[in-house]
C-alpha cells in the first residue's frame, strides 16, 4: 500500500493540492487549514508506516470481520436471466455497513496523531455508530454532529452511539429550526475549526482535501477484496461493478482498484431526487468542488430527498465528478420505487435484506444484467444491511404483507 503516483493511472489520486482534474481541492477557511495540513501529513506518514497499515489490517480482519464474501447470487441471477450476479457483502461487516472501514482507519489515524477526541458528522447515523464503536474500542471520546431531523428519524442509531459512549450534538441550519446531513457537515467543520486538538472523522469521500483521499484509501479494501475474490472464483475480472452513491465512499471503495482496468465497466447509482451527478451543476461548498444541486446563484443547496437517507446528499465526492467528466464511470439514478422493488427482490430470492441505499444499486444492476449475456459477470456492492429500514418498508407495504 503506497500512494506514490502511478504513471498514466487513474488511481494516483488527487494532485498535491487535492484536485481530481478540476474537482476537489481544499476550499477551507484559513482557520481550518492548519488542521487539514497536519492531517494530510499524518495520513501520508501513516500509510507509509508498516506498523500502522498492519494495525489497520489487523482490525479489518478481527474487528470488522473482513474479508466479507463475494457472494454468487445464484437465485437472483436465475431470476434476472442475464449476467452472473455477485454481491460484495459489506452488509456483513461489524455494525452492518461499509462505514466501519473508514471509521476504523480514521480513528486509528487519530490515535496515531495523538488526538484525544473525535468529531464526526452523520446523516442516517451509520457513520456515527461506526465511529462511536471505534472510538469506544480505542478509548477516544466521540462527538457526533447530527441534524435535528435525523436525530428524530434515526433514534435507534443515536441510542447505539450513546451505548458506545458517544455524545450527539444536534445541528440545525441557519433558521435554527431544522437540520439534516449538510447542516451536520457544516457544523462539524465549524466545531473542528475551534478545536484543533480534535480529530474530524469524515464519513464519506467528500470535504476538503485530504478527506476524499483518506476515505477512498480506507474504503478501497472493498475493491481489493472484490478483485482478489473474483480472480479466485472466476479467474478473471468482472465486466461491471455497480454501487450506490451518496457522498461516494462505498462506490469509490468498490471501484478504485479497477479504475485502470478499462474493460471493467463502472456504475454509480444515485437516488433520483438527490442526483447531483446526473442533474447537478459544478459548485464549491463545504470545502470541495464537485457536482451539486444548488440554487442558481450558488448561495444554497437545494432540498433533496430519497427513500435512502444515506444517499440523500446534495453533492458527491469530487473524485466522482472527475470520473464523470472523463467518462470512466457511468452515473445514473434509480427511483425510490425501483429501489424498493429491488430491495424486496433480493429479500425474496436470496434471503438477504439490503439497506435501501444499495437497493438503488441493485435496481440499476438488474437493468444492466438483463441486457448482458450469461457469460458476463456483474458485481454489486451491498454496502449495508436493511435492519434500519424495516419500519419504513412496513409502512410502504401496508397490508400487502398479510397477517
Amino acid at each position, binding site marked *: 500500500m503506497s500512494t506514490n503516483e502511478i504513471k498514466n493511472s487513474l488511481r494516483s489520486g488527487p494532485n498535491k*493540492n*487535492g*484536485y481530481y482534474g*478540476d474537482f476537489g*481541492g*481544499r*476550499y*477551507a*477557511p*484559513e*482557520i*481550518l*487549514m*492548519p*488542521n487539514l495540513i497536519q492531517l494530510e501529513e499524518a495520513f501520508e506518514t501513516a500509510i507509509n508506516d508498516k506498523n500502522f497499515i498492519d494495525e489497520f489490517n489487523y482490525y479489518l480482519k478481527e474487528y470488522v470481520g473482513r474479508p466479507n464474501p463475494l457472494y454468487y447470487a445464484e437465485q437472483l441471477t436465475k431470476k434476472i436471466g442475464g449476467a452472473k450476479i455477485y454481491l460484495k457483502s459489506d452488509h456483513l461487516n461489524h455494525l452492518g455497513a461499509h462505514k466501519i472501514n473508514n471509521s476504523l482507519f480514521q480513528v486509528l489515524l487519530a490515535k496515531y496523531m495523538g488526538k484525544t477526541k473525535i468529531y464526526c458528522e452523520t446523516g442516517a447515523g451509520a457513520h456515527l455508530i461506526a465511529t462511536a464503536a471505534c472510538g469506544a474500542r480505542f478509548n477516544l471520546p466521540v462527538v457526533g454532529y447530527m441534524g435535528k431531523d435525523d436525530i428524530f428519524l434515526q433514534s435507534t442509531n443515536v441510542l447505539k452511539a450513546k451505548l458506545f459512549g458517544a455524545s450527539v450534538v444536534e445541528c440545525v*441550519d*441557519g*433558521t*435554527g429550526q431544522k437540520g439534516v446531513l*449538510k447542516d451536520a*457537515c*457544516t457544523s462539524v*467543520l*465549524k466545531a473542528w*475549526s*475551534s*478545536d*484543533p486538538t480534535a480529530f474530524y472523522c469524515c464519513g464519506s469521500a467528500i470535504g476538503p482535501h485530504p478527506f476524499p483521499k483518506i476515505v477512498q484509501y480506507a474504503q478501497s479494501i472493498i475493491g481489493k477484496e472484490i478483485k482478489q475474490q473474483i480472480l479466485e472464483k472466476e479467474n478473471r475480472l468482472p465486466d461491471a461493478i455497480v454501487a450506490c452513491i451518496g457522498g461516494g465512499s462505498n462506490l469509490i471503495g468498490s471501484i478504485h482498484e479497477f479504475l485502470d482496468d478499462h474493460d471493467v465497466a463502472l456504475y454509480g447509482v444515485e437516488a433520483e431526487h438527490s442526483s447531483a451527478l446526473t442533474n447537478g451543476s459544478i*459548485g*464549491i*461548498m*463545504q*470545502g470541495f468542488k464537485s457536482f451539486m444541486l*444548488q*440554487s*442558481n*446563484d*450558488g*448561495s*444554497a*443547496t437545494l432540498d433533496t430527498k430519497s427513500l435512502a437517507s444515506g444517499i440523500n446528499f446534495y453533492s458527491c465526492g469530487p473524485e466522482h465528478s472527475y470520473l464523470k467528466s472523463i467518462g470512466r464511470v457511468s452515473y445514473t439514478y434509480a427511483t425510490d420505487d425501483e429501489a424498493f422493488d429491488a430491495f424486496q427482490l433480493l429479500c425474496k430470492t436470496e434471503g438477504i435484506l439490503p439497506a435501501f441505499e444499495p437497493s438503488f444499486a441493485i435496481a440499476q444492476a438488474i437493468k444492466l444484467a438483463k441486457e448482458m449475456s450469461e457469460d458476463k459477470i456483474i458485481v454489486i456492492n451491498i454496502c449495508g444491511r436493511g435492519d434500519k429500514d424495516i419500519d419504513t418498508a412496513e409502512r410502504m407495504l401496508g397490508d400487502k404483507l398479510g397477517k
Partner: protein
Amino acid sequence: MINLENRISSIFKNLKLENKKAFISFTTAGFPDVDTSFEIMKSIADSGAHIHEISFPHAEAQADGPIIQLANIESIKNGINFDKVIGIAKEMRAYNQQIGLVMMGYLNNIFIYGIDKFAKEVSGIIDAVICVDLPADVVEESQLKQALKKENIALIKLITPTTSDERIKKLVENAEGFIYSVNVAGITGVKSAEIDKVNSQISRIKQYTDLPVVSGFGIKTVEDVRKFSKSNADGVVIGSAIVEKIQEISKKNTDKKNIAKFVKDFCSELIKSLNS
C-alpha cells in the same frame, strides 16, 4: 477609473496621521430584507465607518457562527441573490464615495457568477474582496486575484491564531489592502477576543508585512472596542455584534428608517470608543 487601491490605502494613511484606527463594519446584504439592509449600510456610512464589509450570504457559511448564519438564511429566504448584492454595492458607492467597500462571502457565488465577469462588474464599485474559503492552494485564488488586480480591487487575506509563521510569510507575500487578523480559533460571533493574544498575533504578522493589520472576530461590545483602541491593530472589524443588533431591533421595529437609525447610533458609539 478611480484608483480603488488608493482608497483603502489612503483611508489607512489618513487614519495613521490622526493616530486613529479604522472602524470596519459588517452587515449581511438582504438582512432583514433587501431594502432595509441597504438603508442600514447607508446609515453606517453616515456614522463615519471607514470601511464597510457587504456580506453576500451563503447558506453553508463554514466560518460563521449562528448569528450570521441566521442572517444568511433569512436574507436568502427574503430573496437576496448575488446579482442583488452587486446592485446594493453599486448603490452604496453612488451614495458615498469615501467609504471603503469590501464584498465578503464564500467563493461559490463568485465562481458561479464567473470570476472575470464579477471583477468587471464590481470594478470602480468595491475596493476589496474577502473570500472566506479561498486559501492560496486552490486554483481560483490566483484567478480571482488576477481578475481583481486588473480592476484595482484587493483580495484580502485572513490569518488566524493557528496559522504558522511559515504560512503567514507565504500569505502576506502578495497580499494587498490590509491583512485580516482573526482573533479567535473558531467561528464568528462565539468566543470573545482576548486582547493580549490579539496583540501578540498582530505583532507576529507585522514581522512579515507593512500592510495595515485589522483585527476581527470576537469583538462585541463598546467595552471590547475600547480595549482594542489600545491594541496594535490598525483597525477593528465588528460583524456579529452589529448583525445581532439588527436582529434584535428588526424583531421589534419594522420601519427600516428606525432600524437604520438604531444601527447608526450603535456604530457611532463604537467608533467613538475606538478613537477616543
